[in-house]
Structure formats: structure tokens, C-alpha cells
């Protein structure tokens, strides 16, 4: 399929289950210097145009870190899938995302007693790293895998009774050719499109360390 074309997603009635129920996706994007990020510009430019996908640019909205907690909660309530999209700085996310998690995911709302508002929603990370996938291995330069580094996100999602999926990672960004980058961007678009139309297969996804790999298999199935 041709990924560059923006895909119009049919809006279908909400349902509990089923293969094609529209699921609303919220991208919490955090990049302190987005204007200088070639990779992330490419990724965001491939977003499918859809009512079901919301791009929420945290640094643009809260340049003073003064996060509007109530507004963020409302936003979360109207979405089913939450994506933490950020560069992988010092093995973690830029500061504002931590600020967001600390403030918005309140006890009694997101977790703890009565904290059921995010229950059964889905969360995962979309990250860009300078190092290659090989650098993130127990015998690699960074000594731990990406998944291990992301364990705080994973456990936070669990705490909030959310399903945590493997990350979608664009790695080795320093040496990406334009063609490779375009392919990653197309993959991201494909992923979002699949998620928003409610493509099921959580168990299937969880078998992979990266959603990138799930996309590859999926695309092989769809384009013989």
C-alpha cells in the first residue's frame, strides 16, 4: 500500500470489541527543539489526516512547563490510545513529559483508589535514538535494551491499569539516509492508521520487542 497518501479513516460507531472499531489516538509529543529535528519532522509529516488522531505538542503548549492538568485529563478521557512520542534523551524522555506524567496521572484519578479513568486504555512510546538497535543490548554500548530503559513507562501504564505495547523506535538517527527516514515515517503513519481503525491484535503486538517489527510482518501479509 502507498503510505505517503493521507488516509481518510471512516468513522465507525464505538464498540467494546471487534476488528474495526474506531479508536481515538492521542500523540503526546515532546521535543524541546523540534525545529532542529530532521527525524521527528519527517515522522510527524507522515501522520494520517484523521479525526481519530490528535497531535498534542507539549512544548508548544506549555513553554513554561505550567501544564493545565484538567485540560489534559479531559483530553485523555476522549482518547483510547496514548502515545508518548519523544526523543530518547539520556535513556529517557525530555523533562516536560516527566512533568506531564507527575502532574496529570494523579492518584485517585489515574491510579490508586478510584483511579480508574484510564483503565483499559492503551499506551506506548514512540522514540528516536541516536544509537542503533545493536547499541542497546546487554553486550552493547548502552548495556541495556530499549525495553529495559522504558520500564518506568511500562510500569506507569500498568499502575494506571493501561495496556502497554512495545515501542516504535527510529534508531541510528545520525546515519539515516533520506530513503530510510521516509520508510520509517511511512511505517509510523501505517501504525497510526491501523491503530485508529481498531486493528486488533494486542497479543500479536506484544510478541515483538518493537512495533516496527509487527509493522513489517503486517505489511508483508497485506502486500504479497
Amino acid at each position, binding site marked *: 500500500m502507498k503510505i505517503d497518501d493521507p488516509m481518510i479513516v471512516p468513522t465507525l460507531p464505538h464498540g467494546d470489541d471487534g476488528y474495526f472499531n474506531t479508536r481515538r489516538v492521542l500523540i503526546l509529543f515532546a521535543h524541546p*527543539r523540534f525545529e*532542529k529535528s530532521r527525524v521527528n519532522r519527517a515522522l510527524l509529516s507522515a501522520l494520517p489526516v484523521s479525526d481519530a488522531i490528535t497531535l498534542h505538542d507539549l*512544548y508548544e503548549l506549555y513553554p513554561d512547563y505550567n501544564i493545565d492538568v484538567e485540560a489534559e485529563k479531559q483530553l485523555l478521557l476522549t482518547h483510547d490510545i496514548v502515545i508518548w512520542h519523544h526523543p530518547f534523551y539520556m535513556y529517557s524522555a525530555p523533562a516536560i513529559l516527566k512533568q506531564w506524567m507527575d502532574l496529570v496521572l494523579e492518584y485517585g484519578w489515574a491510579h490508586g483508589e478510584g483511579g480508574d479513568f484510564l483503565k483499559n486504555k492503551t499506551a506506548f512510546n514512540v522514540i528516536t535514538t541516536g544509537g542503533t538497535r545493536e547499541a542497546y543490548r546487554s553486550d552493547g554500548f548502552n548495556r541495556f535494551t530499549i525495553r529495559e530503559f522504558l520500564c518506568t513507562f511500562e510500569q506507569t501504564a500498568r499502575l494506571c491499569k493501561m495496556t502497554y505495547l512495545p515501542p516504535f523506535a527510529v534508531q541510528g538517527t545520525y546515519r539515516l539516509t533520506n530513503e530510510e527516514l521516509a520508510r520509517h515515517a511511512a511505517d509510523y503513519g501505517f501504525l497510526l492508521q491501523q491503530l485508529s481503525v481498531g486493528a486488533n491484535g494486542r497479543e500479536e503486538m506484544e510478541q515483538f520487542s518493537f512495533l516496527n517489527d509487527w509493522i513489517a510482518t503486517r505489511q508483508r501479509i497485506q502486500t504479497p
Partner: protein
Amino acid sequence: MTEGFLFQALVYLTAAIVCVPIAKRLGMGSVLGYLLAGIVIGPYALGFIGREGQNIMHFAEFGVVMMLFLIGLELEPSHFWGMRHRILGMGSAQIIITSLVLCAGMMLLDFNWKTALASSLALAMSSTAIVLQSLKEKGLGDTTAGKSSFAVLLFQDITVIPILALLPLLAVSTGHDTGGQGKAILEGLPGWLQTAAVLGAGGSVVLAGRFVVVPFLRVVARTHLRELLTAAALLIVISTAFLMQLVGLSPALGTFLAGVVLANSEFRHELESDIEPFKGLLLGLFFIAVGASINFKLLIDSPLQIISPVFAVITIKTIVLIGTGRLFKITFDQNLIFALGLSQVGEFAFVLFGFMHQLQIMPDHLTDIMMAVTAFSMTTTPLLLFISERFILHRFGTLEAEAKEADIIDVQHPVIIAGFGDFGSTIGRFLRANGIAATILDNDSDRVDLLRKMGFKVFYGDAARPDILKSAGADAARVLITAVSDPSTNYDLVKKIQKHYPHLTIMVRTKDRQDAYEILDMGVKDVYRESLDTSIRLGVDVLVKLGYRRYSATRAGQNFLKYDEAALLKLATHRHDEKSYIYNAREQIMLEEQLLANDREVNPTINDHAWESDLRKEQ
């Protein structure tokens, strides 16, 4: 005296420069300073100027002429309309009642009714020059007292036109042989014709202002020569004055009219700024001349003849004004400022008495006395205001607060804010929103009243006075914020506090960089330039509007603020390294240059390399 002009200029300027700062230092205001200067150099003290003081007076009256032109200029019809109740109500009440009481009093003293009526009308006038100058200096222009005073003065200034027009009618029956000393071409004409001529002259000023002056100014403006516009402005004032004198009218009124006519033209601000400095100087000269022309001989020979009418006139005027104020529901302390402020006899009285003398409504001797009464009463106003401010008002203003003070423990008021205008009130509101109650000092009694009703702890009075600071709880407070807009007030305040309350942390609002340097030089560390944050915030928004990411723009702004504050501290210590210790224009320019050079080196992204992948890529 051949050296006449230079010598006189020397005497006047020296007197002004010596006396005015002393008067200001003593808290008496510049008007009293000028008057004292006049008395000192006048014929009865040092005698530098003798009878020619009278001539100087004629020359200096031009200051009044210019002042009225400026008042006229500021009087847009809409502004006028908004104040119409005050102007017509208070103005007419004041003039009618005052002159009726004075007239009745004089008739009881066996003056004939014409003299009594004419002179009581003249005595009802107050001095626009003294009142406006004094109120402006005390920063009371925007208070109820200030606005009411302005309204009444305006009404008086306008009333002078019909009074001047009607005076000849009073003179008709006494015969209008003017004794051949007239300059005006109207003299000798029958009364009704004079009245008609007066009205005609007024009309012609209005017409000329509408249809001649503005096109003329446009032509002048096209030459792009700044001084030519100044010359044109002076020409307008002088030619109007000349025309008025020609028909025997007060030049001041003519120019006032001209000002009103030009108030709506596009040249209004231009004319204002051109005339302003002339007005200031000439008004000073006028006050000096008034001081010098006080006939102390008459005062010494027959003191009762002068002092008792002065006393009577001021008392009657004050009482009538207080009544007027009450009628219009002005609060007591504002009313006192209003009534005492307007209690003197104004400069128009000189004009009116002169005219009456010419018309022979008033005999020579009486004219002399009346002139002396007028001049003498003018000197009392700054004194009365000074006394009321020092000994009556602050007592009244703080009365209520002291009664309350007992039940509020000062530990709860760790912050004192001096000056509760826009700047100070924002701080106060912010602190209050965060549960910190601040004590507020302000010298606008109306605002004080309002704030008290809103539950603020407010003290009326001059924050620089030690007793006020003490009663505001400066002993127990931890922080004092000076938020007054006038830098010199803040400066004085800082000095006082450093001396009397060294334990207080002083936080100072400053106007600009220079002002900040001066406060820093006093050892204050917390200096806040009032427009710095706002202008940077605007700059950040400009970057955003041009397409910058909001976060990058915000960081650039934060960095700039930090750098600018640091530069301020650095330059504050270095600016005295230069040979000339005295602050001058060159130093200012040098500092600006250093700043601009540094600005270019500030790279807002300098600390953000970690966020950019491009940089690493090159390695």
C-alpha cells in the same frame, strides 16, 4: 541701566535657582519658592528690582496666557462634555455664591453697589496657575480634589469672558471718560458697542482657528523644520494675544479660546510640546513678579487694610468652597484640599481690577489695595496647603487605620507596599491571592478609602515620612516594596528606610536602566525595571508570530532576561571606572553600545546542544 536685561535675567534666574530648591526641600512646592524669590529680590527686601517689577509682571503674564492656551488645547470637546456636571454645577455654585456673599459684605461696608459687584466678581476668581501647579507637584491631579479644582477653575476662566464683556455696561452710568490712558481702540465707544466688539473678537478667534490656522500649520509642517513649527506656535499665541489687547480684552482668554479651537486638530500635541517649556519658564517668572509686586509699604503702613480683607476673602471663599464640595459629596480630606487650594484670588483679578480701574468703576487707592490683596492671597495658598498636609490631613487620613491597628498583629503583615497604583496593586493582589496580606501606603485618599472598604490594610500618607512608616509596622515587617512611579520618590524612600529600618529587605521598582543603576549604587540588590519583563514577553511573542517554536522563543526570552540582569549588575559596577564620575550623555551612549555589542553575542541556543542531533552527526 544699560546692562538692564542681562542683569535682570541674572537676578531672576539666580533667585529662582536658589529659592525653588530650598522651598521644595522644605516640602513647600515650587510655587511658594518662586513667590519667595520674588519677595527676596523685590523692592522691599534686597531691592534688586524696583518699580519695574510691574513691567516684568506684564511680560510674565504671558506665562498665564500660554498656560491657558495649553489648558484650552487639552480640552477636547468630549473631555469637556464628560465633566460638564462638575464644571457647570460646582463652577457656577462657587462663583455665584462667593460673589453674592462678598458683594453683600462690601455693600454693608458702604461701597457703592457697582464697585462692590465688580470687585466681588473679580475676587471670586481663583488662580489657575497656582492651583494646577501645586496639585500637579503633589501628584493630586487625578484625585477628586484635583478634578473638581480643574472644573471650577475652568468655569472661572470661561466666566471671565462675559464678565469682561459686561463690565463696560456697569461703567456706563458713571461716565466712560477713561482719562486718556487707554491703549485699546474700543475706549470711548458706547458700552453696548464695546460688548458687541468683545463678542465679535471672540468669534473671529474661533473662525480663524478653524479655517486659517490649521491649513497654515500644514504648510509650515511641510518644511520639516522643527524650530519653524515652534515659531508658528508662538506666533499663534502672540497674535491672538495681540488681537485681544487691541480690542481691550484679556489675552489669556483669547488664547484659551484659540487652544480649545485647536484641540481637535492634528497639531495638538505638537503645539503642546512647543509651548510647554516657554510656559514653565514664564509662569515661574510670573510668580516671581507677583512676589515682587506685593506692596509691603502698604502692608506696613496700614497692615489691617490689607490683612483683614485677605483674611476675610480667604475665609469666605474657603467656606463657600467647602459647602460646594459637600453639595457634590466630596469626602472631607479631599474637600479640604479642594477648598484651601482654590481659596486665593487669581491672576485674572489683576486683569479685571486693571480693567475696572480703566473704566473708573474703581478708584486708584482701592485698586492698589485690591491688587495687593490679590498678590498676598496668592502667597497664602501654598502655605495653607503645606500646613493642611503636614498637620491636618495625615492625622485625619490615618485616624481610622490606627483604630484598626490594634486587632491586627503585624506578624501577619510581613510586606509593606509603598504606592498602590497599577504596579503596586498588581503586587498586592498577587500576594493576597497567595494568602499574604500586605500593608499599603498611598497618598491618594480616595483610593485609600476604596481599598479599605475592600479589606486592605491601607495607610494614607507620604511613605517617606518616618512616623507613617512606623505606624505601618515597618519595625515588624520583613519586606518593603517601593512601587511608586516617580523615581525620585523611590530614591528618597530607599534612603529613609536604609537609615531608619536597616533590617527591611527593600525591593524597588525602577523606571529604566539609569534609574536602576542609581538604586543599585545605594546597595539595594532587588531592583525591578518596570518594563523589562513585559518587553521581553512581547519580543517572545514576536518570535512566535514569525514562526519560532514557542518553547524555543520562551527560552530565548528567559536567557535574555537573565543575561540582561547580569549585564546590569556588571555595568553598574563598571560605569564608575571611567574618568568622569558624573553621569552624562556620553556615558549613557557608551553603556548602550556595550549592551548592543553583547546582545549580538548572546546565543539563546548556546546551552541546548544536547537537544540537537545535527551537531553530533558531524562528529
